[in-house]
């Protein structure tokens, strides 16, 4: 389907940066991406300087916003060697699973990557291969209602135990006053990737490891993890609605933004929407790092974010590489931060004066971001989705009262060991 590009790729590695300045032909580079709404408009804005400098055009192939749908499509397209898509915007956890189908960028982008957070670059590296270039990152935080906490004389909780108590107290007090729909804490409990993120945060912040450690050891069956899940399994029906076990990001935001929750765990996007004019919580909430638990002292926030990968089936490698490099560059990331409010992956941009003035939330988020933990996609390689699926199922079972935490985690360990076999 594609002609051998060995030679061409060699040259392009050398010419990559030079290609940004001059090219003989004007190519059309297609980028498949699940970016949404305003971001689509912003994309044009962000690539405009690149288009001007190189004479190429960048075309977006929009995808459904569901990441599972995107992943399925990309996998099929790549399997069949689709030459019509040059670049793919990939989730932070996909790199190890799709590594074989993407071009190694470590040579052309090695220098550029030095300005990025090493942990993020690490997450996109499989063996020695740099699979994708980070363009923005994401990390969740704890949203809390300043007005309600003040009214009931409570402080912002720093541990999960405290959060449980405060939430219960405020919820009881408010309900006694007739505020029947108020809930203490909303989060994402549906059986999906989001629950893996939530549960990883609980377990990690209780000192229970990160499911599978970077060296490939399965660590999930431990006393701290059990303690974390035991605390959480008290929430549904008490401080969280029973339905929280079906919530994804939007359902949680719905409860929160109508003023019906004291605390919420969510991504940065909820900040801007919660500050909108029609929001019931406008000006009444604050954001902080997620709590810790079980006497452990560091909290954890699951690392999210998006990257650009170059398909090895692409027929205009040079132009595509140049666009990928541009999108990961500090200039493009700054434009993106100013226009879309996405968190940059370039360290220096957190000190940038323009960004601090226009989007103050970004420097604020640096604290959250420093606590970020990656999901175990790197050590588990191609099996990550199955690992995650088994993990969220075990957690979901525990939360819905189907088996105890200890039982389910032991079972999970058994399943994962089975899956791992002689090595990931």
């Amino acid at each position, binding site marked *: 389907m594609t002609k051998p590009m060995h030679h061409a790729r060699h040259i392009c590695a050398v010419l990559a940066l030079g290609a940004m300045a001059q090219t003989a032909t004007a190519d059309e580079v297609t980028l*498949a991406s699940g970016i949404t*709404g305003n971001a689509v408009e912003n994309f044009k804005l962000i690539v405009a300087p690149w288009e001007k400098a190189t004479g190429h055009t960048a075309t977006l192939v929009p995808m459904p916003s569901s990441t599972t749908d995107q992943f399925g*499509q990309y996998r*099929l397209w790549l399997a*069949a060697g689709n030459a019509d898509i040059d670049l793919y915007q990939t989730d932070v956890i996909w790199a190890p699973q799709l590594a074989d189908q993407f071009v190694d960028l470590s040579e052309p982008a090695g220098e550029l990557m030095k300005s990025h957070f090493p942990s993020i670059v690490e997450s996109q590296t499989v063996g020695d291969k740099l699979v994708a270039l980070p363009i923005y990152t994401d990390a969740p935080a704890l949203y809390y209602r300043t007005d309600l906490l003040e009214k009931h004389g409570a402080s912002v909780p720093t541990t999960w135990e405290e959060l449980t108590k405060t939430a219960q107290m405020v919820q009881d007090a408010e309900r006694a006053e007739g505020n029947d729909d108020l809930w203490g804490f909303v989060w994402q409990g549906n059986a999906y990737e989001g629950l893996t993120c939530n549960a990883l945060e609980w377990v990690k912040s209780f000192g229970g490891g990160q499911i599978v450690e970077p060296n490939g050891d399965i660590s999930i069956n431990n006393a701290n993890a059990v303690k974390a899940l035991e605390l959480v399994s008290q929430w549904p029906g008490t401080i969280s609605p029973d339905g929280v076990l079906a919530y994804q990001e939007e359902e949680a935001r719905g409860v929160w*933004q109508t003023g019906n929750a004291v605390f919420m765990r969510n991504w940065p996007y909820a900040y801007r929407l919660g500050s909108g004019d*029609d*929001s019931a919580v406008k000006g009444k909430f604050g954001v902080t790092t997620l709590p810790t638990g079980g006497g452990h002292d560091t909290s954890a926030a699951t690392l999210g974010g998006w990257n650009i990968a170059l398909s090895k089936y692409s027929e205009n490698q040079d132009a595509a590489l140049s666009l990928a490099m541009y999108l990961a560059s500090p200039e493009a990331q700054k434009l993106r931060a100013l226009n879309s409010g996405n968190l940059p992956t370039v360290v220096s941009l957190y000190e940038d004066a323009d960004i601090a003035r226009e989007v103050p939330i970004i420097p604020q988020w640096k604290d959250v971001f420093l606590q970020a933990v990656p999901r175990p996609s790197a050590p588990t390689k191609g099996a990550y989705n199955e690992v995650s699926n088994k993990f969220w199922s075990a957690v979901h079972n525990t939360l819905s009262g189907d088996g105890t935490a200890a039982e389910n985690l032991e079972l999970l360990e058994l399943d994962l060991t089975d899956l791992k076999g002689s090595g990931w």
Partner: protein
Amino acid sequence: MSKFLNATLFYALVFVIVGVSVFPFYYAVITSFKTGTALFEVDYFITKLDFSNYINVLSSPNFMRSVWNSVLIAASTVGFAMFLAVTASYALARVRFKGRGLLLICILAVSMFPQIAVLAGLFELIRALGIYNTPWAMILSYTIFTLPFTVWVLTTFMRDLPVEIEEAAIIDGATPWVIITQVFLPLMWPALVTTGLLAFIGAWNEFLFALTFTASESQRTVPVAIALLSGASEFEIPWGVLMAASVIVTVPLIALVLIFQRKIVAGLTAGGVKG
């Protein structure tokens, strides 16, 4: 008195049927007029007429384009399937030959695989034919579910038509082609319109193939376009816009049904030939 009671009960039943069918659509209409936080509140009536979601949908050039694509693809799919199915079902229903039952089962077997399983193979086929990212990709791949359905339904209906009319036509020296087009088709309107309509909606609503076989916004069909309508930011689901788009694309289908009413009724009277 009992007649009055019967009528009341009958209309009550009609009311329930219509109510249950339409309520979610009605709720979609209500939701389509909402924006922002109001989306998370329960309302039973339209509280304020805010057309911004509709303007949002209609002003995006690719949306109307995708409606047009869908019309084109669904209509061609149905036309293609009906042509093949009418002739084939005549053979299957009216001509006696060995292995008819087996053939019917084989045709059915085509739609026994989960769509997702045949996706990779179909994708290769479509790329090999060079029709990737064109309407032909969808028209071709949709036959995989429309054709077995139309063939089976039309065969069943055609088998029930009385022998006498066909014999009369044969005595008059009509060829099989004339029998199909001049004698059977007019009698089959209810069945034709129904299967055509169901196949049309099936093609109109198909999502997975349409998403996989297109790679540019201008080639996409309605369900894909709706799935691509997105909130202002990641995770946000634009309920208002989504509902407005759903209302917009459902209206043509309702119009289609209303237009074909007449044909269904026409078939009704023509159907009374038997006996």
